[in-house]
């Protein structure tokens, strides 16, 4: 239902969204792509430790949905959240510094790649547990309703999460109480190395949620304008008290599950098929076709973003590691 309406409206976006809005979304997608390429490079050089899950290929999902939000809305991320936190507008310098484990990191070097937080922007983290964020997002939805607010909470997760018990408990609870939560499944076809068809008895994820009496829609996760149009509708519905919603965005990660994964479980042809439908290229062509951007502006944005990413690395490299006494800080808010 909403899918059809959003499909019709998707090309409208080129007319209805102001040019500056388009440029902002385009910039964010390019920023995420370049930031992630740099993060991969820095990981290979051992500047970044731990696990590092790159968002390359999925940029349209975070940018399309988050651009439909207000600053007072909430976002719950996954461990593949670099793109999500960049989309809410957090400082790339502080994010890179966090990946480097520095004192100036967005989580003061205590979180790392999987645990990026920005309370000022209501970004509630990077969660390293598959499905762990869904009950929490439900609680945020409960808090919004408790206070009589009209914010929404967007909760990202992957296709792997739909087989966790937490997914089903949270969806049932959110639907039972009609909470303003938008559950966004970034279906990149693989839960780590396992194809969704090898993990889900019913691979059509919309059907998995139909039993909860919740509105749901699926969208092409490589098509920014389609995602944005759907998000505008869904956010409005949830603000008006007609939540929750479930969105399945079919997308693809070009890289492995993490930097440690060579992704031998899928063919080069498959990756190439998806790369042809690159979300940034698709959007770029749409913008050029509508006369909303020029080749010169594209080159300008590219150079501008490269500078931002280089600056983030420089900032991270020059930042100190946390002081030794930081080890014991922030165990308890009461200071004990």
């Amino acid at each position, binding site marked *: 239902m909403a899918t059809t309406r959003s499909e019709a409206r998707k090309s409208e976006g080129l007319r209805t969204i102001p040019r500056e809005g388009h440029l902002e979304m385009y910039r964010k997608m390019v920023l995420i792509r370049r930031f992630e390429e740099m993060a991969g490079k820095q990981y290979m050089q051992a500047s970044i430790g731990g696990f590092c899950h790159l968002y390359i290929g999925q940029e349209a999902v975070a940018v399309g949905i988050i651009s439909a939000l207000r600053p007072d809305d909430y976002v719950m991320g996954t461990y593949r959240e670099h793109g999500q936190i960049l989309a809410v507008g957090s400082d790339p310098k502080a994010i890179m510094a966090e990946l480097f484990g520095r004192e100036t990191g967005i989580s003061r070097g205590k979180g790392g790649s999987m645990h990026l937080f920005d309370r000022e922007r209501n970004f509630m983290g990077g969660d390293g547990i598959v499905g762990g964020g869904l009950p929490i997002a439900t609680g945020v939805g409960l808090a919004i309703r408790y206070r009589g607010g009209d914010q929404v909470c967007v909760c990202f997760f992957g296709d792997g999460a739909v087989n966790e018990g937490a997914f089903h*408990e949270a969806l049932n*609870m959110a639907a039972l109480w009609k909470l303003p939560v938008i559950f966004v499944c970034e279906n990149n076809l693989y839960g780590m190395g396992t194809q969704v068809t090898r993990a889900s008895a019913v691979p059509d994820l919309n059907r998995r949620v139909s039993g909860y009496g919740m509105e749901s829609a699926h969208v092409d996760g490589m098509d920014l304008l389609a995602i944005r149009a759907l998000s505008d509708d869904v956010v409005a519905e949830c603000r008006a008290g007609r939540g929750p919603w479930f969105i399945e965005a079919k997308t693809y990660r070009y890289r492995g599950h993490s930097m440690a994964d060579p992704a031998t479980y899928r063919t080069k042809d498959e990756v190439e098929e998806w790369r042809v439908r690159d979300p940034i290229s698709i959007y770029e062509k749409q913008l050029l076709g509508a006369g909303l951007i020029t080749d010169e502006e594209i080159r300008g944005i590219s150079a501008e973003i490269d500078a931002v990413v280089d600056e983030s690395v420089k900032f991270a490299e020059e930042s100190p590691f946390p002081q030794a006494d930081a080890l014991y800080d922030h165990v308890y*808010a009461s200071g*004990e």
Partner: protein
Amino acid sequence: MPILTYREALNQALREEMRADPDVFLIGEEVAEYQGAYKVSEGLLAEFGARRVIDTPISEEAIAGAGVGAAMAGLKPVVEMMTVNFSLLALDQIVNHAAKYYYMSGGQYNVPMVMRAPTGVGLQLGAQHSQNFESWFVHVPGLKVVLPATPADAKGLLKSAIRDPDPVIFLEHELIYLSKGEVPAEDYAVPLGVADVKREGADVTIITYSRMTLFALKAAERLAERGISAEVVDLRTLRPLDIDTVVESVRKTHRAVVCEEDWPMCGMAAEVIAQIQTEAFDDLDAPILRVSGVDVPMPYAKNLEKMAVPGEEDVYQACLRVTEGHRD
């Protein structure tokens, strides 16, 4: 001072904190219409309405997660688990989320949530409904763990737990909900992390918490008849642990018996004993003894269950052993 049951004292604490702070709410299975599986929330739905006293589906992980999310969004949820046994289904939310957010966000998101649950063994409830898990929670930095033994402590500690900015695991012993005690009429709170000397003595220190405190006090009376003066230290809060009060007492009595209803392996008593020997080894006149539950899943048969559950006699005997040679 008014005499209240442990359950009434808990109910008062919830009621008073909900009156005082509109951000405090109660959520859990059967807390509203049914008025609590153990009736701790009796009358709260009538006073505060369904917005603040929230019945949930049987979904422990989502209940705990909803508490975590609401707390991160600035509210002060009191999450009730019907019993501590079912909280195992919510461990990911408690251990990987509630306990971690303040640290891994670099101090951005604290989780001011209380998870209340009845705990304890007995009543022939069998292996899955008759256990204690405080040592699991105590193991986790980021959590605070409270187990009150008396009505006055139950009320005062629950009030502090609700006002606390961190996640607090609050375990109520289900066999003492009807126990009675004096509870101050005026507004008061008992601070977290402070042990209480429930009885002063000179010959041996009994260190314990929750229902075992009541057994320890009875054992101390019997010991007095034998001329042994036992001091009873009720830990009340297991994390943060008030080891100073424990050590101060052991330095005075030179003997210690640490009692828990829980299983012995990696339990609270083991931790307390380790800390005493580090802090006060030279003050000890005898090895520290431990009284624990028997190291088996809880049997159903009444006679077997009785053998598995530690009580007053076990505390009494351990004190006799540790003071042997000291007497007469």
